[in-house]
């Protein structure tokens, strides 16, 4: 089951930081992938599957560094995270003004999904990249579409929208049917 929209909720259970590891980084654009590796090296190999976890975490860190903190090196990106073979959770907070366009993004995404379900690829061309006033040529404008698919427990922002929490559960390949008591 994939999510259909980005949620906005301060007290969502994905926002709970109890038991999560913590790291913080300066907003250095050149080091986004390096910072990401420092985070995902904690993950068991079973859930790193072909770099996807790294790629998805790097998109969120990039958004915080670039769109949140505007690459101001005095501003921090704060990351809380935990990884097991069954679950990945990440919370990323920046010191910027927040992703104000969440409602526009959700609206854009639902139109995009309508094109996809109609297989209307001509019209889809208008919905391949989400742009705002501050987007530049290096912004793909497509990271959060994949994020909603990948993070199957949800993509949630705080109301201030400078903090995003994501979660994903993984099916254990070697596990049988779980026992419920």
């Amino acid at each position, binding site marked *: 089951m994939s999510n259909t929209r980005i949620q906005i909720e301060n007290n969502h259970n994905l926002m709970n930081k109890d038991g999560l590891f913590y790291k913080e980084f300066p907003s250095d654009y050149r080091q986004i*992938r390096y910072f990401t590796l420092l985070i995902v090296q904690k993950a068991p190999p079973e859930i790193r599957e072909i770099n996807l976890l790294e790629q998805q975490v790097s*998109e969120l860190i990039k958004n915080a560094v670039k769109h949140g903190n505007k690459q101001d090196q005095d501003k921090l990106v704060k990351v809380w995270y935990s990884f097991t073979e069954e679950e990945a959770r990440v919370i990323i907070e920046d010191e910027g003004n927040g992703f104000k366009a969440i409602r526009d993004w959700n609206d854009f995404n639902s139109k995009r999904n309508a094109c996809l379900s109609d297989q209307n690829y001509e019209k889809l061309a208008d919905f*391949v990249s989400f742009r705002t006033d501050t987007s530049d040529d290096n912004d793909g404008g497509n990271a959060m579409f*994949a994020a909603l*698919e990948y993070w199957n427990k949800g993509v949630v922002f705080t109301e201030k929208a400078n903090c995003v929490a994501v979660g994903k559960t993984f099916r254990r390949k070697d596990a049988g049917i779980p026992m419920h008591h």
Partner: protein
Amino acid sequence: MELKVRKSGNIYIIDIEGEMDLYSAFKLKELIGKMLEKNISLYIINMEKVEYIDSSGIGALIYVSSALKKKNARLIISNVHGSVKKVIELTKLTGYFPMEETLRDGILKLQKG
């Protein structure tokens, strides 16, 4: 990320090697921009040696496929595999990009006209 251009008949094959990420994806846009100025009309982007792509890389592929379409040039993206394939699937653009399994399939498709 390294880009190399070779020719097969009148088809230009761009072999990409390495990681297509936020630091490098712009190079593909620049290269195709220059090739379009020379009125080249048949392109294959060969992704055989690309093992990592991010949203900037996907953005570059979207940009070049629409730039080529506007100039009535034709494009095939070949050998998409592994995590690159998975990221395209997550972005739900599998049906949007003109992809072929192998370079040979891509060449045959462009030759058919």
